[in-house]
């Protein structure tokens, strides 16, 4: 599952551009029909012609607003708003699929608020270090933990530059049917993979943010040039957190 870190990025870009061209069908000169990424039938595997990504506009993200976090908790059953919250663990041990972070520029004193979660890296360090292959990347770019074979060693937690993963220390009950989680395994943001596979095309955090009216999170297919996400990413200057690591994250930020 893991890909070599030394892959020539320019060659990869060239190949993915080729795939983009191949994915489109020319109807007439200048008119292209692209396959609809969201309508994947249940018996078809996730395709590498899709790469799920997210753009967080920190200018729209409100300070003190926690809607994305509670939205994720309710959807996936973790934390205080979730159905299978840990009862015995201390707060710094508890699950943390997504958290709010405030950044202050010491020179200008400007404060930006943003949600931080698994960045769904193309070359994910957690996948590289996993001794069992439990930490894995799906064909469509979503990084997941296969808890069936996770041995709970927590190497991936050490390797993740974003502190995106957490470990479950106690037996749990009342998990959500689509989000199994249990003692002795590592977990993190799943990019609401159950929603994407069902064709909903969005995540719980983005929905919660839209409900609050902030509309700071755009979810979409980075490989589909017509998606709202691709349009936004091509129009505005966006940042990858710790871009110096060359991980090519699926989650990007605007305004930081």
């Amino acid at each position: 599952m893991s890909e070599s870190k030394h892959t020539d990025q320019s060659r990869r870009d060239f190949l993915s551009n080729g795939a983009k061209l191949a994915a489109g069908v020319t109807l007439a000169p200048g008119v292209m029909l692209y396959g609809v990424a969201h309508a994947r039938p249940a018996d078809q595997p996730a395709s590498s012609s899709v790469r799920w990504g997210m753009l967080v506009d920190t200018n729209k993200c409100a300070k003190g607003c926690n809607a994305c976090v509670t939205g994720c908790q309710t959807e996936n059953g973790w934390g205080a708003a979730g159905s299978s919250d840990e009862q015995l663990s201390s707060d710094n041990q508890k699950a943390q699929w997504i958290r709010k972070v405030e950044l202050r520029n010491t020179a200008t004193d400007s404060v930006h608020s943003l949600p931080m979660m698994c960045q769904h890296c193309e070359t994910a360090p957690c996948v590289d270090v996993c001794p069992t292959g439990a930490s894995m990347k799906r064909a469509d770019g979503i990084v997941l933990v296969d808890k069936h074979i996770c041995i709970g060693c927590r190497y991936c937690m050490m390797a993740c530059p974003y502190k995106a993963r957490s470990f479950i220390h106690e037996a749990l009950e009342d998990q959500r049917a689509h989000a199994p989680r249990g003692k002795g395994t590592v977990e993190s943001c799943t990019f609401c993979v159950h929603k994407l596979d069902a064709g909903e095309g969005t995540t719980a955090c983005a929905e919660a943010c839209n409900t609050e009216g902030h509309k700071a999170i755009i979810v979409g297919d980075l490989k589909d040039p017509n998606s709202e996400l691709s349009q936004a990413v091509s129009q505005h200057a966006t940042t990858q957190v710790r871009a110096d690591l060359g991980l090519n994250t699926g989650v990007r930020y605007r305004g930081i």
Partner: protein
Amino acid sequence: MKPIKKLLNVLPALLVLTLSAPATAGDNEGVGPNIPAPVKGEQCVEDTDVMRKNHMKFLMKHRDETLREGIRTKQHSLKECIECHVPAKDEAQATRSEGEHFCKSCHMYTGVKIDCFECHATVPEKSAMFHPLVTPGMKAAKEAHQPASAELLNKLAAEKNNTGAIQ
């Protein structure tokens, strides 16, 4: 040697059948695990004997396909097992003791160590009342709103032919 080998091969299946037979027959109260009847549906996705012997193989294959590749067919999905075999919390049959779970009761009786339910939900989230298998009205409503794709294509093709004929 050969007949003995054959006997050994069928032994696990025989054992399972013998152990669970009293529960389905219902005449030997207190013998064998108490396996609750399914909440909905009359026929399992596979024959009962195949399921008794092989359900773990189906589940193992399906879990890898689902998690790693994103294939979400319903036939061998654990979530669907639970949907049919276990009542939701808000249903009448839900007042049950811990040991009366369709999967757990047999696993406990046979001393199976693997436990899907340390992580997976033990009860369905929605009541079976609205499931098309239970309520014919719901099934009819669903068909009206979501016709099968073949049906829809035929309908569209027929409409196209009609327009052709008029012209």
